[in-house]
């Protein structure tokens, strides 16, 4: 397995290079002149040209890319065009809150999703199943934006249990993570349910039951274990999206994370920040995928990664 992990890690390098070229070209070719945006509406052409020169945007694009890559290799992500601060400093304060938020969302979404899914499957077409699935469908259908505001109104304004936003200790993570995890929880619940239902029909389950295995052992050890493979795939994919996709939740809860930083940077065409943030998201996505593949073998040792 370690050989496989090492190989996948090495393979990441060309993928990241390709991604860096694509994102670099993409952000430089979308309309919008950062120099103009930074200089402001009342700037004269001379102002704009000064800013452009100061930002190094008057250099040929290839030179800009080579400079960027040179810096990247030495761990230097450049300087933000809007704040003038090193990008790495901006990431330092933004990355960990986002990552933690994602992990917490994933954590409870997985637990709740699995519980609802299993419970629904073993109570198929009974009221607990209907209740579970209504919860799941609601989680997917309610927009995160609205759910967030609803939770703020209820738990912060009315009950005063959690902060309305910002980042001030663990309690600041609760409402945003519930909002962010709702959709994933629903998806995991639905996948677990259908996967469990399929597995429960399988011959080996019937054999197990015929041999007199306890129902609990049948459900948890045999059925759930085999259902988990597909659930892990879904969860892994969603996890990757969560990392970069928490923009809405971060905005609603004024959460100082990467999603909000990216959106702000796009509005200002802050190339160094956008470029590095996208590269970071890509790296995270690849790492999560690798983790999912490794998790397959943990769940089912018959899966041979090296093959």
């Amino acid at each position: 397995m370690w050989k496989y992990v090492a190989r996948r890690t090495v393979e990441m390098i060309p993928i990241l290079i390709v991604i860096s070229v694509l994102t670099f070209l993409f952000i430089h070719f979308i309309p919008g002149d950062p120099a103009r945006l930074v200089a402001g509406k009342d700037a004269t052409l001379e102002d704009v040209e000064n800013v452009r020169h100061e930002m190094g945007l008057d250099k040929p694009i290839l030179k800009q890319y080579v400079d960027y890559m040179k810096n990247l290799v030495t761990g230097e992500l450049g300087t933000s065009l809007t704040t003038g601060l090193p990008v790495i400093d901006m990431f330092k304060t933004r990355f960990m809150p986002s990552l933690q938020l994602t992990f917490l969302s994933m954590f409870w979404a997985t637990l709740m999703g699995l519980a609802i899914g299993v419970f629904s499957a073993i109570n198929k077409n009974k009221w607990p199943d209907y209740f579970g699935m209504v919860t799941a469908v609601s989680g997917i259908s309610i927009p995160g934006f609205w759910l967030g505001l609803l939770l703020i109104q209820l738990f912060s304004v009315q009950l005063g249990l959690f902060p309305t936003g910002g980042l001030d200790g663990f309690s600041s993570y609760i409402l945003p993570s519930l909002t962010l995890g709702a959709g994933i929880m629903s998806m995991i619940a639905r996948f677990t349910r259908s996967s469990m239902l399929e597995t429960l029909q399988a011959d080996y389950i019937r054999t197990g039951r015929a041999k007199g295995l306890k129902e609990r052992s049948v459900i948890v050890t045999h059925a759930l274990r085999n259902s988990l493979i597909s659930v892990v795939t879904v969860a892994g994919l969603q996890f990757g999206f969560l990392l970069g996709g928490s923009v809405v939740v971060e905005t609603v809860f004024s959460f100082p994370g990467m999603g909000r930083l990216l959106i702000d940077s796009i509005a200002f065409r802050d190339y160094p920040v956008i470029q590095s943030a996208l590269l970071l998201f890509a790296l995270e996505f690849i790492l999560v995928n690798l983790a999912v593949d490794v998790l397959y073998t943990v769940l089912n040792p018959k899966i041979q990664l090296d093959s």
Partner: protein
Amino acid sequence: MNYVKKLVFVILCTFLLAACAEKDNSNASNTGDKSTTESGAASSKNELVIAVNENFISMDPHNTGDTNSNSVQETMLEGLLGFDADGQIIKVLADDYSISEDALVYTFKLKEGVTFHDGEPFNAEAVKANIERIMNDESLRLYSRGFSLISNVEILGDYEIKVTLKEPYGPMITRFGVAKMISPKMIKDNLADIPKKPVGTGPYKFVEWVQGDHLTIENFDGYWGGGERVSKITYKPVPENGSRVAMLKAGDAQVIYPVPSQNIDELSKSKDVEVNKVPSTIAHYVSLNTYKKPLNDIKVRQAFNYAVDKDAYIKVVNAGLGLPLDSIIPSKTVYYKQQKMYEHNIEKAKELLAEAGYPDGFDIEIWGNTNSDTMKGMQFIQQQLGQIGVKVEIKSMEEGTLSDEIYGAQTPDDAKLQMWYVSWSAYASDITNATKPLFHSVSFPPNGANTAYYNNTEADQLMDEANSISDVDRQAELYEKLQEIVYQDTPWIFLGVDEVVYGVRSNVSGVLVNPTGGLDVKNAKVE
């Protein structure tokens, strides 16, 4: 069961790992020397939490364009001059000043006994170091706006300094108000820290800034102006309107700015909260491309102005907040002169359109950004002009794209723009910036924001003369004439001037918002 346990264990471990990592990370914030505080809501009575709608960009006072950053800087840093509640120039670190008749020499007498937060004395040397930094450091965006015109800075005494310009520049006095003083020691030894943790002479000193989350300042005991103040203020950027309102209601914030128009009624009813309104210098208008058909005909432009009901505009688009724009500048701008407004008259508009040769109207495009308020404004214009047979197509573009489309045109012939729904704001004391970039023929895009391609020699001359003298009576005369001429020429559909709205908890007093939208909490008190 074993596998479920493993899965839970893996997730739990990674989360804990991340939690540990955050502990280290908290040290990565920009923390001031004496920082002992952490983020969070005000716990004691003598503290304030202020939620604003945007992130702070930079704390470098010589390189700041956004209002929010500027508001925070105002508490920590002071300039030779500053602005009063109406946005007009007042003396701050200057005891007195004079401007030569030819508007080239500015002489300042400085306040004595002022020290920076780091103990450095404020004197002519400190002012010289600041002015020279702005003049010479090419990375400062403020550089090109006024300070690049300075030819000489001369120290006349410990507390007297003379600044000479190469050519007259009307807004220079406002520039001196905007350019706040940084400790000379910081300029000499620690330039890189200026955008992160500035050191000034203001009533508050910097404590810490965690990007995107909060910025904290605390009372500076050695402040030259004395007085009692709130001991600690935490600013939080909260872009989402609903969240900001929730913070005020829950008491997580004592001040929010701005208050979204849809929440004004709801908040006004609460006994714990006060909602205040202030007329601003933010003017909304539709820029009409006077260079191209059919808008090159003054009758068409006048017809548009008669067709649009300004009162309805304020009610429908601005939730009743604001005043009609009855000149080319808002009423809070210096030298403002009210003009006779184009009253709402559909018949007259139709007549004018017929006289111009368009009895059945025509098709035209209006551009604007994707902001929901802009969309509402453009739809309003569409509906209003529809009444006189003009079919308006709305093209809304993301700000960057829009900016490219407008400023990408190198000559008036290249311009595809027909109408632009936009707003403009300048310092109340700076009429040059409220007129020259918008109406002077040298300001056609890409060189300025004269997107109406308005070209009138007389108007150009008025602006040029007013800009080159220091005689305020003569300036008033020239700007009055300018307002008359341009308003008559109707390069815009004149719409409205915003009122800015802010909310405070009832136990908070002394919070002000100036017409430019700057939040002033220097004299705030909590009961």
